């Protein structure tokens, strides 16, 4: 039996270990954290669209024409950051997106969540946010047809739909007055998750895309929840017209998940975790690149930090190539 015992390294494995002692180029170092390959490293001037990293208390701008957004406050007519993160600007609105934070959602987000509690007429769902999201009984498709009306008996058998521990994919529908998210699964692509395994990454790393449901070419389905929860599962042919509504709430995995399927799922999961380890944005293209890069390593090596870094680097290079 072989166990790898390592010495710890400083953040950033490859010789960047010394950078923490070298405070001259902090920005550069932080931009690494944000996925060094997607964004050009650059000056502090945010106006040209490059990355601007700030820490709490740091002045973002003294220009009074800008409006204060999330993560900022105004002090002595200066706009100051209240979190450590990246400055974002939309026209005159300046906000700071924190680097390491819980998920803060927007309406329309696809999220993966875990049911934590069943109460009257609603489920509480952990979505990696500041508080549990709410899934109302009225926000799900009831078995027996999309148009079926909610009945009183449904209230008494909520656990037959979702019970504590179940994983669901849902869409963020609205905010409650206290800031809690209201979810819905009123589409056949949403609902209970089966046939695979769950991983979690920092929410900021999941790139907002047109679709968050991907059937990758190697025969693995991936749902990239914008809250950082990701579901990697065996490929199931999707034909939305033919889905049996009774099946939506089934807890049964499909019978024929082969060892090869499992290996592919594990490989994809590890690739995503590799990207997350190297703080790179996660989308279907980069996952595919990482997967291809991973094929030169045996599956069980993919949990090694070193191998993960190599895969992520290679995937990053492929992305750069693609951009030309």
């Amino acid at each position, binding site marked *: 039996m072989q166990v790898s015992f390592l010495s710890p390294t400083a953040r950033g494995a490859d010789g960047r270990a010394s950078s923490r002692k070298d405070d001259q180029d902090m920005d550069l170092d932080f931009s690494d954290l944000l996925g060094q390959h997607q964004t050009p490293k650059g000056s502090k001037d945010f106006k040209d669209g490059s990355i601007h990293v700030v820490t709490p208390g740091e002045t973002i701008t003294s220009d009074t024409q800008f409006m204060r957004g999330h993560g900022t406050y105004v002090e002595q007519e200066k706009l100051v950051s209240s979190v450590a993160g990246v400055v974002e600007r939309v026209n005159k609105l300046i906000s700071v997106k924190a680097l390491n934070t819980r998920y803060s959602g927007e309406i329309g987000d696809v999220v993966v969540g875990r049911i*934590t*509690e*069943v109460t009257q007429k609603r489920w509480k769902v952990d979505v990696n946010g500041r508080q549990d999201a709410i899934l109302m009984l009225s926000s799900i498709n009831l078995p027996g047809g999309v148009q079926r009306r909610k009945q009183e008996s449904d209230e008494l058998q909520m*656990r037959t739909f979702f*019970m*504590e521990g179940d994983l669901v994919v849902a869409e963020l529908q609205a905010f409650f007055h206290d800031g809690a998210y209201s979810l819905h699964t009123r589409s056949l692509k949403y609902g209970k998750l089966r046939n695979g395994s769950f991983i979690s990454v920092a929410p900021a790393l999941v790139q907002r895309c047109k679709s968050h449901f991907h059937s990758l070419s190697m025969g693995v389905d991936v749902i990239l929840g914008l809250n950082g929860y990701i579901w990697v599962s065996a490929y199931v042919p999707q034909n939305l017209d033919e889905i049996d509504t009774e099946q939506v709430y089934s807890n049964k995995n499909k019978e024929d998940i082969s060892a090869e399927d499992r290996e592919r799922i594990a490989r994809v999961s590890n690739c995503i975790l590799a990207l997350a380890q190297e703080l790179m944005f996660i989308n279907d293209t980069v996952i595919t690149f990482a997967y291809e890069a991973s094929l030169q390593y045996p599956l069980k090596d993919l949990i090694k930090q070193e191998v993960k870094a190599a895969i992520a680097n290679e995937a990053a290079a492929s992305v750069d190539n693609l951009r030309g």
Partner: protein
Amino acid sequence: MDRKRVAGPENAVAPLVEYPKDQLRWAPQQEHRHSSKRQPEDIRPIYLKTGLINQANGSAYIELERTKIACGVYGPRQKKASQLSSFSGKGTLNCEFKFATFSCQKRRHHIRDAQERELSQVLSQALAPAVRLELFPKSVVDVYVTVLENDGLAACLAAAITCASVALAHAGIEMLDLVAACSGSYMTVPRNALGQPQTDATTTAAGASRDEIWMDADLEEEKHEDGSIVLAYMPSLNQVTHVLQNGRAEGAVISQSVESCIEACNKIYAVMQHSLLESITNGKTQ
């Protein structure tokens, strides 16, 4: 200070015990165990009786010579506020293990200490595999064990498991099987034990001592053991529900001790069956 109990002096301690020089303390000897004339594989005679706590749903009392343990089972009943967590489709088995203050050589405190809390956990892990918890969703079965006299810790734990299992069955709780438990101690026994007690392996020449497994060791024997094992076992289903071993032993000794424990558990099982069947016939005559 504990205001809810009658207060005694603080800093009370047990007096020092001094043994006269000429009077030997007991030490392990070949073919001579501490209490009675037992062979290494022999367990102490068991007295096991159900139904001594009439307010409980089920209860049992076990006695192995000086070891005396009572157990009461309550439920399935509603969880108390302190036990309440999220909804569970399965029932919960809650065990509490307590030594009476006078049950050990050193006086115990009223409040449960770390050891008692751990033994509580061991007890519930040993019994849970046998209880059909899926049949009483969101309820709790409380198992309370009080040791009145402790004559060997490992044996005491084993007896508590046996006793609690019988009490559960007596409470009419659906179970897959009874859980019998037995302890074994790893002893180094000098071959020619005459005169000086030779407890130290190294002072005895190699080959002059022998490793033995003494089942169901009492306190005096336990003081001389190299280690001990407690094994809980469902005899009918042939499943080990708990194993707890401490001290150091070679792999072969462990295997042997596991087998010896299982053998002893089968003997204990017969006693358990007998006492439960007796509770039926007694019920009939009343």
